[in-house]
């Protein structure tokens, strides 16, 4: 372990803003992509369900 304290860990030898800014942006990018993917799948599955329900109801008639 490199760090003597959590404060040191956060400060990153003075470059904390840059280091944590980088890791935070990478995490934000992953989270944003995950959100977009979930949304897209949600819309696709909803459309699928609507169409399947339509097919079932028209088959019954």
């Amino acid at each position, binding site marked *: 372990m490199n760090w003597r304290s959590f404060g040191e860990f956060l400060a990153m030898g003075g*470059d904390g803003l840059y280091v944590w800014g*980088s890791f935070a942006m990478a995490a934000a*990018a992953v989270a944003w992509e995950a959100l977009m993917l979930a949304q897209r*799948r949600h819309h696709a599955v909803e459309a*699928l369900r609507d*169409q399947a329900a339509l097919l079932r109801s028209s088959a019954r008639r």
Partner: protein
Amino acid sequence: MRFASTEPMSLALPSSSDRSRWPAPRWPGRVTAADGYRLAGRALPGCRLAALVFTLAGLAVCLLLVPGDARHGDAARIAFVHWPAAATSVVIYLLVVGWAVAGQRSEGRLAALMARALAPTGALMAFVALWTGSLWGKPGWGVWWQWTPRLSTEMALFVQYVAIMVMQASIDDPRRGDRAGARLAAAGLFLLPMVYVSVAWWPARHAELAVDLPAAPAFVGLLLMTAACGAWALAATLHRLRSLILECEQGAEWLSQLPEARA
């Protein structure tokens, strides 16, 4: 394309279940969209788990175990995000071109859909590489940005990704969109060797040959973070592919058999 004069023009391809209307496959055992959907679905949990495990392990190594760099101090840790993202963005571009070209040579749309699924993830990786590189540039070299060959070609790669995505989004006809995307992607292929060798050919203020991290923990950390990046990119791509297949195959018979179709 032949147009029948009395029929309305149909822009939709016959669905994969409507085999009587599909042309004969060029090779045996053609993978259908339904197969692709199921395969991707089976691979997804493993990819996500791998991404999580590699990310946690990689972060532990690069943030806790690796000491600071002799030249750049702790700012060099940015390399553990920057390099994997940049490498992944380059590899994904190669895959986009490969799948897009394969999509042009096949009758089904699965390969073309795979290219469409890869592009946004690649664009995001390129963006992360540019952002983290810039944040490393300030403490390391004193500048946020420089028009050096490596930075410029990576920026060009990001713009190329966005161009492919915008192009395909703006074309309504799926087949024409696939073809346009394939051509644009292939046209940008020259960027990849440029990104790779630009540091050797035009020595400038770029890092990778100059970071003095001690070998073992840094190498392991870099490997883990790269694996994490790759696993995440694969998981995102497969997830997107499944949504694309659902959208593309609307109205197909096999879709109504899926568990998702029952509310």
